[in-house]
């Protein structure tokens, strides 16, 4: 049987991937809504965006909380190291999330057409992935300093390192790429051709920087953490699959058909890359301080968490299917008839 820590980290990685997808759609949509307002194209896509996002914005947030509580629960040492080091970037991420979540609600349910609210909502959407990606950078090691029992973050190393900037850049462009390709799929379902034209262009535009920055980040990772890089090279087939899915998605988007399949390919593209990255990092959660074996919670708690997780999934999966049925795959709702 798989050990608790391995189940734990696999489940959490899967949830982080889930958050990556749903949050990217959400964050990117906020930015596009703001950008479309600035370029006076908002009449084309705003209804589309709010129709999808309104029922699900709170769910997106829970994905994040779930991952975060889960990792602290399964691996309490992460709270100590990351908690101590991430006070400033973590607090800034929290503030941005708070501004974004609440101003989305204020703008959407309260005072519509408030440009300040929309700006806060749109701009924070790009800054949040940037601030959250710092945690991924830290896990590569070399940025967290431990002196005695004091753990702190070496800001100078962090800010002068090309790896951290390439990860930030990758986070931002991936958000825009994932989001625009999802919106293209949603617009095609809604048979909203003017919106489709606009968001398809966004998707095609953001695909190139995504793949370039992904390669750049990979090269910088090789310079920073040879072990991680080598492990990922051993998983070359996953990375190759990722590139292949990207090519298929681009071909579909370029030809302007099967947008649903194109979006699934993009999801698989990120899935392969994300898991190659995660498996390559094994067994470290924070190089070199935390490995998944030496930081795992007690067996009794590990067992309880796995049991609760299975029980929770039995509630969660039907509920999520219900949401999808009502708001994503109900053609009448998507077209705005309900």
């Amino acid at each position, binding site marked *: 049987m798989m050990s608790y820590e391995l189940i734990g980290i696999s489940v959490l990685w899967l949830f982080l991937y889930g958050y990556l997808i749903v949050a990217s759609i959400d964050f990117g949509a906020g930015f596009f809504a703001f950008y479309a307002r600035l370029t006076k194209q908002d009449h084309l896509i705003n209804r589309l965006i709010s129709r999808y996002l309104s029922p699900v914005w*709170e769910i997106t947030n829970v994905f994040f909380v779930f991952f975060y509580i889960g990792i602290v629960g399964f691996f309490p040492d992460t709270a100590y190291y990351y908690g101590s080091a991430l006070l400033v970037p973590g607090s800034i991420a929290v503030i941005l999330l708070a501004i974004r979540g609440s101003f989305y609600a204020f703008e959407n349910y309260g005072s519509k057409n408030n440009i300040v609210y929309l700006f806060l909502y749109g701009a924070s959407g790009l800054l949040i992935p940037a601030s959250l990606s710092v945690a991924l950078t830290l896990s590569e090691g070399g940025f967290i300093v431990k002196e005695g029992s004091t753990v702190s973050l070496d800001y100078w190393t962090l800010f002068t390192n090309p790896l951290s900037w390439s990860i930030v850049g990758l986070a931002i462009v991936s958000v825009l790429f994932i989001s625009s390709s999802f919106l293209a799929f949603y617009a095609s379902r809604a048979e909203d051709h003017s919106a489709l034209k606009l968001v398809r262009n966004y998707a095609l535009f953001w695909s190139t920087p995504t793949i370039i920055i992904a390669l750049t980040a990979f090269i910088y990772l090789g310079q920073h953490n040879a072990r991680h890089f080598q492990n990922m090279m051993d998983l070359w087939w996953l990375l190759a699959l990722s590139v292949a899915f990207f090519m298929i998605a681009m071909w579909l988007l370029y030809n302007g058909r099967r947008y649903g399949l194109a979006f699934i390919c993009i999801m698989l593209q990120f899935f392969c890359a994300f898991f190659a990255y995660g498996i390559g990092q094994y067994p470290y959660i924070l190089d070199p301080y935390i490995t998944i074996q030496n930081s795992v919670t007690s067996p009794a708690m590990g067992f309880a968490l796995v049991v609760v997780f299975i029980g929770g999934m039995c509630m969660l999966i039907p509920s*999520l299917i219900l949401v999808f049925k009502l708001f994503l795959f109900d053609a009448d709702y998507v077209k705005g008839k309900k």
Partner: protein
Amino acid sequence: MSSLDPVLLSRMLTGLTLFVHIIFASIGVGVPLMIALAEWRGLRTNDIHYTLLARRWARGFVITVAVGVVTGTSIGLQLSLLWPMFMRVAGQAIALPLFMETFAFFVEAIFLGIYLYTWDRFKKKYTHMLLLIPVALGSSASAIFITTVNSFMNQPQGFTLINGIMKDIHPIAAMLNPATPTKVSHVLASSYTLSAGILAGIAAFSLLRGRDHVYYKKALKLTTVCALVFAVSTVMIGDSSGKFLAKYQPEKLAAAEWHFKTMTKAPLVYGGVLDENNEVKYAIEIPYALSILAGNRPDTEVKGLEEFPADLRPPLSIHYMFDLKVTTGVIILLIPVLYVFRRWLPGRKPYPKWLLLGIVLLGPLAMIAIELGWMFAEVGRQPWILRGYMKVSEAATTSTSVGWMLVLFILLYLILCFSAIRVLSKLFRNKEAEKELESLGLEGGIVH
């Protein structure tokens, strides 16, 4: 700024986040229940007024949920950012309820999203109302789980601490500690009271402003009666919390009551001030009352503060919080009682102005009571973060940036609260229920 102690600053920041969060969280726990009640009545009696009530409450509720969610996310992360040493040690024991809470939160989020966007979408009318059951259950369940974490910090059990590492952990025993039953039920009951009180206040406010449509009278009746029921249960549970304290956390009760010497037939000290020699002045002493509070009998022995080492005593200022909270609680109970008996009161008016004013105050008073109650509970377990095991000073971050984060969060919460109030009042101003009834074409055909 950085010369200030990170421990003190961490306490201030945690306290601030909780101060904001608990109000919105309590609304999040109680209001779905009230919405369900109104919608259910509307369907059962075929009375469109109650259905509109549910709709209007739901519309405002989303705004408060948004602030509740984001402040809840803050406190969730701050737990590790500000108290990393605590989480490293206690994370072994409290991970289970924290994890369960996120599931409850998940269910609530999913069904609230569905509920808000499916008015008139189902063939059977009751289906839509049933969506609120997972919302209400989810929000109450997350309150329950998170309160067990707090109970654990007050009354830790289910582990052995060896060299700063928890061994031999029983996750369920840690959750079901002696503090759990009273704390959880008190939190739930007071959240329901707060929510019913706020909604009653809104109805009373409309009546005060001269809107005498029957819609507001129905709203007032439903909410005030609910507030009464919830307030009664809150007070009764509060009494059992007193008995819990006497048995398990006597130092907290003793500090709250300025009870220095162990004795039977202990009097209850109400109000007053303490001079520099710890002599109580200007207080009202109610004979035997503390013994009765602690054990239902006048000859119950109540432990005095002198039995505890000075460095492990909670601050004596919690006496004021305790007295104020109890006083507010009694006022909250009295107002709806007066409403029920208003036709027997002098004047015999159906809606006396002073009573409506009192009902408007129910919500704010309940907020004050909840804040005071939490401050009493939290300050009252100083100096411990994990009572008997870990002190607050050993648990905080050592980072020197907490001060700046405190400033940022103060700004954030000010902006959030200000905007939420602005948006909420804008949402309902110039959008009276009467007009909405007309515009929906729902008025007419209903006997008033």
